[in-house]
């Protein structure tokens, strides 16, 4: 498996799109930090990049890369290598490089300008989001043989988590506004890793007061060590479950 990771890394770091992504990320991070005098304001602007651009690039790049290395994967399957170690090797290779890119583009500027607890939470959420969307991309990729369809599934997944889910959530809250929904919203937000990441960072930024009573309940729950622990566990589950499903499907796939 380590050998496969090595060859994937060797291949992936010569990819120009990845380079462009690093440049884009660091331009927007450095730009936002330098334009604003108030660092926490820049961080909340950067949060939008973190919650929208990072998941999008992670899931799209991974899906395209997976389908482009289909030949490589086919070649490996005919060799005496376990299918699980082939898929995990590719996964670790892609995941590692996406993390390196995230830390170069966002990690570095955040540590330089805001190396506080908020900054570290910001980076932790970003890293988790990156890996979560790599996992989701693998699941989308093994579901089909067709590249276009795979990319379509990935885009839909991203759309769902960044836009559609919040829309549904708002509708639910609006429809049941007569009932106390604060606890339910906590539960519902666990169904969306992007929301979890947002909550984790916002609460550390001390602007939860802006979120009204729900914010207070969130503060109470996610502000405590147990709440943070639960949020992190749920996010790790968001990494593990899609990956395990992808492994299971890949094991029985006809190549």
């Amino acid at each position, binding site marked *: 498996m380590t050998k496969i990771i090595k060859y994937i890394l060797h291949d992936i770091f010569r990819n120009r799109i990845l380079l462009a992504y690093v440049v884009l990320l660091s331009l927007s991070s450095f730009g936002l930090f330098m334009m604003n005098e108030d660092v926490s304001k820049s961080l909340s602007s950067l949060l939008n990049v973190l919650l929208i651009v990072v998941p999008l690039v992670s899931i799209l790049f991974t899906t395209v890369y997976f389908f482009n290395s289909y030949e490589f994967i*086919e070649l490996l399957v005919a060799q005496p290598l376990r299918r699980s170690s082939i898929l995990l090797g590719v996964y670790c290779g892609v995941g590692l490089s996406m993390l390196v890119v995230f830390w170069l583009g966002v990690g570095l500027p955040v540590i330089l300008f805001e190396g506080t607890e908020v900054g570290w939470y910001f980076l932790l959420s970003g890293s988790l989001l990156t890996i979560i969307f790599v996992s989701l991309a693998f699941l989308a990729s093994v579901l089909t043989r067709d590249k276009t369809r795979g990319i379509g599934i990935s885009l839909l997944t991203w759309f769902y988590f960044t836009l559609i889910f919040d829309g549904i959530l708002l509708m639910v809250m609006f429809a049941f506004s007569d009932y106390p929904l604060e606890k339910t919203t906590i539960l519902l937000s666990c169904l969306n890793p992007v929301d979890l990441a947002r909550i984790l960072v916002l609460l550390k930024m001390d602007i939860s007061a802006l979120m009204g009573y729900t914010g207070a309940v969130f503060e109470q729950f996610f502000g405590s060590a147990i709440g943070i622990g639960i949020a992190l566990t749920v996010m790790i589950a968001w990494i593990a479950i899609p990956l395990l499903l992808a492994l299971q499907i890949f094991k029985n796939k*006809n190549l």
Partner: protein
Amino acid sequence: MIHISELQKRYGKIEALRSINLDFDVSKVVALVGPNASGKTTLIKCLLGMVIADAGTILFDGKDIAGDVSYKKRIGYMPQIGRYPDNMRMGYLFRMMKDLGSNRVFDKFDEELIEAFGLPTMFNKPMRALSGGTRQKVSAALAFLFDPEVIILDEPTAGLDPLASELLKQKIAREKAAGKLILVTSHIMSEVEEMADQIAYIVEGEAIFYKTITEIKSETGENRLGQALFHLLHNRI
């Protein structure tokens, strides 16, 4: 060496393999012959674990291959259409394959075909820049690289130039003499006659006969294999 019984595989509604029963022994060249889409490639892919059969068993040296990968150490495979990572250079591809299979050889790698095909002069070219025939040469060289006991070649000479296909046939004959089992699919009967000892004729996912070439010829009284096969199949219908 390889024992296949009651092997079945469906792709949705299409029955690729109905029920295959075959035995392959060492020091033989066995040709899998049959019309297009009769299930030859599916059978090979089942043998390699690239496609997972719905029912039936494949025993390799007496051991069921389901869920196992170590048996693949002893198989070399040349696919019908060799597909390789586009950006990888040929030399790097060979280095990578040797690295990944470093535990597969006792003594040294069999690089005879790499040399014979003159591939080292093209080691700097990326795989996407290669012609179809050159890719075939790469695939063939990879199949023999680990000096495996079983060599599976899916339409090996399709797209090869006359010199290269002659080199490959000579290599096959040498490996057979060395006690290897070689499975070949081909549509060119003169070539099958030249290379193979036995023919398994597959139609619509079933092996309708499995005989030696001399048997086929004496049964039909024909001298040329193509005619003999025609005779045999015509009588069945």
